């Protein structure tokens, strides 16, 4: 077995790991590095539950090979709060009951943060289309959209 040695930065921490070339980044995060906050819902890039950012770009970690992460910076859900200070999106999701079972929530939070970093004043339509890559079966999306719009308002200081 010929494992690759990969050096990355995950949630601003230096991280090194060994992995097989065929292993998706999602499996390494969960099974090798014990970071189980990123979830697998389909393994084929159709549900968004495994969303992370790679060098600032929102991606599905099930559709990225771990070897491709060499020298890159990764942000996962585990790094979203600063200690016990929740990110405004995390707070708004709780306040707006924007989660029920919560398996899709990490993916939604990572995707919503990527949106608000690009567009601090999105319309409801823009939020719905940006988050169309994240599937949720419990909530019917309504309260997720309200939570993201409310978070945007707070970030804008409106």
């Amino acid at each position, binding site marked *: *077995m*010929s494992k*690759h040695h990969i050096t990355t930065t995950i949630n601003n921490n230096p991280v090194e790991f060994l992995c*097989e*070339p*065929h292993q*998706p980044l999602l499996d390494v995060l969960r099974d090798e590095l014990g970071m189980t906050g990123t979830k697998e819902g389909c*393994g*084929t*890039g*159709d549900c*968004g539950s495994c*969303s992370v950012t*790679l060098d600032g*770009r*929102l*991606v*599905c970690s*099930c*559709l*990225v*090979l771990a*070897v*491709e992460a060499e020298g890159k910076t990764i942000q996962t859900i585990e790094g979203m709060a600063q200690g016990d200070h929740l990110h405004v999106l995390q707070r708004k999701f709780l306040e707006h009951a924007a989660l029920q079972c919560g398996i899709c929530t990490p993916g939604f939070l990572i*995707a919503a943060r*990527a949106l608000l970093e690009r567009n601090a004043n999105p319309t409801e339509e823009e939020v719905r*289309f*940006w988050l*169309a*890559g*994240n*599937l949720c079966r419990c909530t019917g999306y309504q309260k997720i959209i309200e939570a993201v719009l409310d978070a945007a308002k707070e970030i804008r200081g409106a």
Partner: protein
Amino acid sequence: MSVLRYETPATVEAAAALLASASGPARVLAGGTDMLVQMRSGRVKPELLVDVKHISEMTSLTQENGGWRIGAAVNCMALVENKAFASEWPGVIDGANLVGSVQVRGRATLGGNLCNASPAADSVPAMIAAGAVASVVGPNGRRDVPVEQINVGPGKTSLQKGELVASFFLPSRPAHSGDAYLRFTPRSEMDIAVVGAGVNLTLDAHGVCTAARVSLGAVAAQALFLPEAGQALVGTKVDEAALDALAASASAAAKPIDDKRGTKAFRIKVAGVLAKRAAIAALARAKGIN
């Protein structure tokens, strides 16, 4: 998963050499959003992956003699976020902006979308309509190939062993030109085109169409380039009659199959409907109303 070799060449020529010298199955890895799904399902079992994302020529987006040179490994989001390119080729952006989801577009590339050779690929009809030319690099040098000649069937391209697409060239645009791409999917996002239609047209000063390229996706073994459908618009003011002729020509050209996403009858009808609507959108853009 058999033992898999992963290489990250720095030049297109090195990538071509790796592919040419591979004994077992070898594939280019650009965005990987189709490749990894096929590897996971076992439909594809490569023994060598050539990751081209470290090759600057393939990851850059530059203006070249009035047109644009797009690296085959530029991801769709980067393309969509480039304001200068997006304003000049809105139709190509329509296509790039419909590939999968935001997450998928963060990785998926025009080169990968083309060479995966899915008949329903969203960027391909728009690129064909735009008249894009692929720069193909192989063991015996480079050649230019119009995009419509790359795909020859589901999962099959005209590329020889060791060849890969390095970049695309979009020619400079004459005045009063506009392009658009529309697709039909049951969901508003996150879907594979049941039918796709790309139209690119140019008007003269009086609003008469002087040139038109039409392409359909997901209605044949590969994206279709339809010169006759384009002719239906040339010489007209792209009025209702011309649009109906375009729709009829598009429907006639469609050779779809029944599958889990749509029926033959549905695709034939909707091919015409979308071709017409795409032409209307392209017309508006050509007149500067967008």
